[in-house]
Each structure stands twice: as structure tokens, then as C-alpha cells.
């Protein structure tokens, strides 16, 4: 078997375990009921240990073993939880993560891992038991005695299953009758020899009653090296039967059986009693002995998942998406040809094909949707670390974890959100003393939420910090010539435009005073390349809210096709509110500017022709208007003609990065012609 086949699986699953582990650590730190998180942490580390040992990743295996031993002490209450220990455990989770990423076969503990282990042991007061090394004979004695000591303090336990009670007599050794003396030698390669020895003893109990065993059964049971031992039992079984029973327990090198018809003279009551006493020193779960399955499963129902899952490599899903994208384009072209040919049979087949391709597209898009929780779950840890580093108290709440986004959108969104969270903790939320002085609770509230809004998803980061200092931003913006010197007040839109300027946002003094700005430009450009938009609202002393609006999927979006002159443009529906034909009365002049009067609203009017800087053409007979919106802002966009709606496949478009803010990408239309995708949000 070649374990390298399993390397990917190992990493993927270890990452999942780590993320669950970090969640549990946070829950533990927040003082939630102690047992569940500790159990979850223990299980995660245990699973990683098992997998890494299988892969031959020695460092991770050894590290997780040490960690597991310590956690076991926490679990049993032997080791108390302190703030220092929590910090050390977080550090251990990080070290484990690094270790997993760097894992190689037969590797040794990295210096970082060693440091973390030392710290853990320091904090925990002495070394955790190192059972992983138990296999080494030199340590066997220590462990054995510890094991026996533990046995000594076990409370009275229920009768063992299938042990003494199932023997031929339940009332102690028989006073007379045939006996057998067996000498057993275990194979040198035996793993967990104690268990094998125990199994041998158990098989023998099925054939008779044990009179004595040298060493005693509990010593055998605790053995960590292969044993040679003697068992004396009262039995009427034959030699062959006894030998078969012993061998059936596995890993037996030699068995010799000596039968005797004489009654045993020396009985070792201590050994017998010990043999009958099961080891209940440790339990995996706290399910009571008497519990039946029903009560256990009732307790466990919330976790039970019924759907079946198959793991697929992400690249396969991406390939499927590319293919369906191409197929959608071809479908458009076929549709056009079919309409031109006007053959009823062809049209019918085309209708079916269109429906099937549509269904296929929905299925593929749906299969790519992932709950945002998958990414959001990483953030509590991050916020905690940043807050601790800065000496701030932060209460993070996450809402809408179940909202789904396309995998690729989700991957892209992580970094901007991290930016916003860091900003909020660093520049938005005040220090506890400052908050207290201004009558706020010491702990700042930070909310990260996701919600669905028609065909888009809103991701919001909200803090109750000091807000952005508009006056300072205004001063800087005037200095830098971003706004007219006469400006007296920055509204939210202008404020965002200002702080999203690289020049202003990186200016240190503004960052320090204004409370925000670091990297907003980076966030905005990233969000824009995704076809999304950014909104900011802030109130001095009350807090700041940043909202990212995203399309649910990046790859295929529904768009309006608009013609201006001979050019065609795609307008994604994400920001389109409605469309209308231009009636003479709809556009009016107010103070020399065109405005659109829509019901009781007056909206500014933009002409796509001007926006894309096409030369003025002949005034068309009739124009059409697209009402676009972003947040509360709306405008009318005048185009020569709307030629239809189409699912477009977004191709990334490098020019966007160079500051060509107007277009968010390019696409191939169903007739094969290329078209630019207008970033409607940027027009507002």
C-alpha cells in the first residue's frame, strides 16, 4: 500500500479537524459547558494522531500524542484550565496546523513544535504522560506501576461481560478435578501485548477457571512488551482445544500445555480476584453502563446528518463550471440559428435542449454552493488573536452562517473580510477603558453577518466603535484635492470614495486619527473584480458598518444586453432595479441637468454613451432606460436599445486591476461576439 495516495485526504481532513478544534477551543475559552468542547478537542487531536501515524508523519503523530495526553488530563479534571493553558493550547493548535502542512514521512519535531510542547508542559505543571513512548521497554515499568496504581483506586465495578461469570462455575475455583498448566510465549512483534494476553486469558476462561497466573492477570493486561507467562486453570478441556483457544487470540509464538488430573493444592485468591476485575479506569464516553441505545441516540440527535456525501476535487467542479459556461454560450448560438431556420422539429428539440442545459446549469451551480460558515468559522480565532494583541475586549457574533455562496466567491471573499475585521478591531473599537469612560460596555461588539438579497449576498461587518472621523478625512481629502475645497460635509458615498483612495488610506496620520482606512482600497478593488460593491456607513461615537454586496456566483450571471451605437454591453442584473422605455415626459431638465422622474423619485440620469466615451451619435428615435441601484442610491442609465437578457459567462479581465473601474469583465455573447461587462455599481 502506498500511503502517498492518502496524503491529500490526510491534509483535507486534518484541516477540517483543526477548524473544529479551534472552534471548540474558543467555546472552551468563552466558558461554555466544559465537557463538550474538551471532548471535541480531544477527539480532533486523537483523529489527527491516528491519521498522521498511519501516514508515517512522525512529528505530527508525536506532537498530537503529547497534546492528547495533556487533554486527557484536562478531561478527567486532573489538570485545571487556566488562561495560560488556553493560550498554550491555541499555540498548540497553530503549531499542529503548521506541522500538518509541512508533514513529511519520518520527520522530527520542528523547533517550533518543541517550544510549544515545552510551554504546554510548563503551564500544565510537569510533563504529560508520554504513553506514545510506552512501547520502549525502558519505560515499561513506570507505566505498568502507574497502571496498577490506577487499578487499585477503581470503585466497585459491575460484573465483567463474559468473564468469570460465564465460566463453568461461578462460585470460585473447584476443589478437585483435572487442571492444565499452559506456558505461552507471545510473538516479538505483538502490538498492545497486554490486550492480547488479556484475550488469551479470556479465551481460557471460556474453557475453565483460572487458578493462577504468573505474572498476575492485571500485570499481564498492562504489559507493554511481549510476555512469556504461565496460566494454571481448572478445566476438563483437552490439550489441543486449549492450544487452539490460546492461538485464536492471535500473536502467539509458542504454547505448551501440561494436563494434570490432580486437584490443585495452591490457590492464589489474589490473582483470581484480579483476573475477574475488569479495568474501568478510562472511558471514552460518559454513557452509563445501563443506558440502552435509545436514550443515547436521543441525546445525540442534533448532530446526526442524514445526507450522503461524496468528496470531489475542487478542480473537477471548476472544470464542470467551465464546460457548462461554454455550453451556455453554444446554447445561445444554437438558439439564434434555430430561430433563423424556423424548422418546427428543430425548434422542439432546441426547446428540450435549452431546458436540460438550464437544469444542468442549476445543478452544477448548486453543487458549488458552500455555506459561508465554512470560511466564517475561521474568524473568531482571528478576531480573538488581534483583540488580545491590542489589549481589546471584543464580542464577535456571526450571523447567517448558513447562507450559501459559490465556492470561488467564498474563497475570494475571505481576504477582504479579514481586512475589514482587523480594521474594526484595530481602528474602530476602542480600548476597554476608553469605552467605559464614554459609557459603553467594556467589550466592543463586532458583528459579521451574511444575508441573501435577491440575486446577491450581503456580507456585513459592523462595529460599535468610535466611527470614522469625517472631519479629519475631509481635511486630508481637501489637501489631496480629492474633493472641492469648498466641501463642508462628506456623505457616506464620498467618504468611501476618499478612504478607498490608496493615497489617503495609507497615510499614517489619517489612519491613526480617522480610525479606519487601512486597506479599504484593497478591499474595494477585490470586491469590484468579483462584480460586487462596497458600502460604508459610519457615525461618530456609534460605530461603522461596511457592507459587501456580492453576486451569488461569479462565473455565470444573468445580464441585460444594451446597445449603444454599434457596441453591445452586458449589464449584470445584480444592480438593476427595473427598465423602461424613454417617454418624452420621463426625462426632464432640472438646473440644466437631466433627471428621471420615477413615480415620486427624482433620479440623476447617465448616458451609457457618455460613460463609455463613445462619440456622440445620431439621436436615436427611441431610447431605453435602465434603473440601476446600489444601496439607497439609484440612477437612470440611458442606452440606445436593450436587446435582451442572457446568461453570460464572466471572463476575468485584467484591465480592471489597472484602475479601469468601469468594466468588471468581458464575455462572449451567444452570437459569438465579445462584449464588455459594465460594473454598474461603479456608476453610482
Amino acid at each position, binding site marked *: *500500500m502506498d500511503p502517498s495516495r*492518502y496524503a491529500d*485526504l*490526510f491534509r483535507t*481532513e486534518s484541516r477540517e*479537524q483543526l477548524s473544529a478544534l479551534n472552534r471548540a477551543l474558543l467555546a472552551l475559552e468563552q466558558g461554555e459547558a466544559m465537557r463538550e468542547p474538551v*471532548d*471535541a478537542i*480531544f*477527539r480532533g487531536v*486523537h*483523529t489527527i*494522531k*491516528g*491519521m498522521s*501515524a*498511519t*501516514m*508515517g508523519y512522525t512529528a505530527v503523530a508525536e506532537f498530537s*500524542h503529547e497534546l492528547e*495526553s495533556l487533554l486527557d488530563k484536562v478531561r478527567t479534571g486532573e489538570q485545571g484550565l487556566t488562561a495560560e493553558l488556553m493560550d498554550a493550547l491555541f499555540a498548540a493548535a497553530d503549531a499542529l496546523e503548521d506541522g500538518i502542512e509541512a508533514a513529511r514521512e519520518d520527520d522530527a519535531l520542528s523547533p517550533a513544535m518543541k517550544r510549544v510542547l515545552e510551554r504546554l508542559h510548563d503551564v500544565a505543571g510537569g510533563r504529560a504522560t508520554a*504513553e*506514545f513512548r*510506552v*512501547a520502549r521497554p525502558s519505560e515499561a515499568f513506570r507505566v505498568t506501576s502507574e*497502571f496498577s496504581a490506577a487499578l487499585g483506586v477503581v470503585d466497585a465495578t459491575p460484573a*465483567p*461481560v*463474559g*468473564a468469570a461469570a460465564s465460566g463453568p462455575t461461578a462460585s470460585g475455583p473447584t476443589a478437585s478435578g483435572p487442571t492444565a498448566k499452559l506456558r505461552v510465549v507471545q510473538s516479538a512483534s505483538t*502490538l*498492545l501485548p*497486554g*490486550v492480547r494476553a*488479556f*484475550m488469551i486469558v*479470556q479465551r481460557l476462561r471460556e474453557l475453565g477457571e483460572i487458578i493462577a497466573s504468573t505474572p498476575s492477570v492485571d500485570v499481564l*493486561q*498492562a504489559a*507493554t512488551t511481549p510476555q512469556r507467562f504461565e496460566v494454571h486453570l481448572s478445566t476438563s478441556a483437552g490439550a489441543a482445544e486449549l492450544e487452539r483457544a490460546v492461538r*485464536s487470540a*492471535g500473536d502467539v509464538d509458542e504454547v505448551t500445555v501440561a494436563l494434570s488430573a490432580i486437584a490443585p493444592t495452591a490457590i492464589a485468591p489474589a490473582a483470581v480476584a484480579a483476573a475477574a476485575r*475488569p*479495568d*474501568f*479506569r*478510562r*472511558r*471514552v*464516553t460518559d*454513557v452509563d453502563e445501563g*443506558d*440502552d*441505545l435509545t436514550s*443515547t*441516540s436521543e441525546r*445525540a440527535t442534533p*448532530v*446526526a446528518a442524514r445526507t450522503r456525501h461524496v*468528496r470531489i476535487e475542487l478542480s473537477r467542479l471548476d472544470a464542470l463550471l467551465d464546460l457548462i459556461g461554454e455550453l451556455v454560450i453554444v446554447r445561445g448560438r444554437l438558439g439564434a440559428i434555430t430561430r433563423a431556420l424556423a424548422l418546427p422539429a428543430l425548434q422542439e428539440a432546441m426547446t428540450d435542449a435549452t431546458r436540460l442545459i438550464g437544469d444542468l446549469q442549476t445543478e452544477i451551480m448548486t453543487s458549488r454552493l458552500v455555506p459561508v460558515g465554512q470560511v466564517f468559522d475561521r474568524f473568531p480565532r482571528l478576531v480573538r488573536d488581534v483583540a488580545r494583541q491590542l489589549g481589546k475586549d471584543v464580542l464577535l457574533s456571526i450571523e447567517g452562517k448558513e447562507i450559501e455562496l459559490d465556492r470561488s466567491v467564498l474563497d475570494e471573499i475571505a481576504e477582504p473580510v479579514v481586512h475589514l475585521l482587523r480594521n474594526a478591531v484595530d481602528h474602530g473599537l476602542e480600548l476597554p477603558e476608553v469605552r467605559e469612560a464614554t459609557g459603553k460596555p467594556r467589550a466592543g461588539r463586532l458583528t459579521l453577518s451574511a444575508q441573501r438579497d435577491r440575486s446577491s449576498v450581503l456580507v456585513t461587518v459592523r462595529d460599535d466603535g468610535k466611527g470614522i472621523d469625517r472631519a479629519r478625512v475631509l481635511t486630508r481629502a481637501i489637501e489631496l484635492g480629492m474633493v472641492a475645497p469648498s466641501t463642508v460635509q462628506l456623505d457616506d458615498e464620498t467618504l468611501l470614495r476618499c478612504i478607498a483612495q490608496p493615497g489617503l488610506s495609507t497615510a499614517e496620520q489619517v489612519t491613526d486619527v480617522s480610525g479606519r482606512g487601512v486597506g479599504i482600497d484593497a478591499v474595494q478593488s477585490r470586491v469590484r473584480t468579483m462584480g460586487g460593491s462596497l458600502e460604508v456607513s459610519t457615525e461618530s461615537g456609534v460605530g461603522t458598518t461596511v457592507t459587501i454586496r456580492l453576486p451569488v456566483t461569479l462565473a455565470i450571471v444573468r445580464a441585460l444586453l444594451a446597445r449603444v451605437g454599434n457596441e453591445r454591453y452586458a449589464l449584470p442584473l445584480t444592480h438593476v432595479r427595473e427598465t423602461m422605455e424613454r417617454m418624452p415626459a420621463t426625462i426632464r431638465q432640472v438646473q440644466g441637468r437631466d433627471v428621471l422622474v420615477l413615480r415620486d423619485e427624482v433620479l440623476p440620469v447617465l448616458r451609457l454613451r457618455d460613460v463609455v466615451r463613445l462619440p456622440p451619435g445620431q439621436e436615436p428615435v427611441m431610447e431605453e432606460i435602465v434603473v440601476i441601484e446600489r444601496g439607497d442610491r439609484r440612477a437612470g442609465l440611458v442606452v440606445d436599445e436593450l436587446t435582451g437578457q442572457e446568461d453570460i459567462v464572466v471572463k476575468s479581465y485584467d484591465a480592471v486591476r489597472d484602475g479601469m473601474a468601469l468594466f468588471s469583465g468581458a464575455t462572449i455573447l451567444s452570437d459569438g461576439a465579445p462584449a464588455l461587462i459594465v460594473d454598474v455599481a461603479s456608476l453610482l
Partner: protein
Amino acid sequence: MAPTVLICDDAIFMRTMVGDILTQAGFEIVGEAETGVQAVEKYRLLRPDLVTMDIVMPDMGGIDAVRAITKLDPNAKVLMCSAMGQQSLVVEAIQAGAKDFVVKPFQPSRVLEAVQRVLG
């Protein structure tokens, strides 16, 4: 007919590996379980010839699952999968009715030996 197996482990990694070893040896994997509760439910449904059972699982540990399975079917053949350092737990599992055990990291030959012993 190939002997049927139910694999119980909370790690996909481990299930895949055990599954590969047993499939190559001609067994038919009829089910997988991620928790003790699932293991018992699937045992009830599938009645496999062999069960491989991890000790540490969420929901209900492997030992309690063995206990429940043995109660359902006294002849159930359960093979425990253990990590190093779980000696006392394996003993407990055997007392609970498991027939044999293997130790992680798995060596295919050892897994198959244990399986042969269990199936007799």
C-alpha cells in the same frame, strides 16, 4: 459471496484506508458509519459479516457501540481499531464483546490476519 463489512470511523481518511485494504482482499464494503450511533443503526440494517470499529468517535464511542451491537446480535463480529496507548480501552472493548483488534498505523497484513481470526 464476498463477506460484507461495515466500517466505523469518524475520519474519512481511516475509512478509505481500511476500505481499500479490505476491498483488495475481496471483501465487500456495504456501509460506513461516522459515529457510534450510526454504527449501531447501520448494523441493525445491514447485518454485515464484519464490523471494523474505531474507539474514539463523536456521539457514541466505539466501545458503547460494540456493547449495543453485541446486545442486538450476540454473534456480531467486531474488530476494534485502536491507536497506540489505548490498551485499557481495547481491553474494555473486548470485554464489551469485540472479537479482536488492530493497532494504527495499520499494516494491511495485520488487518487481514485479524479479520481471518475474527471470521474464523
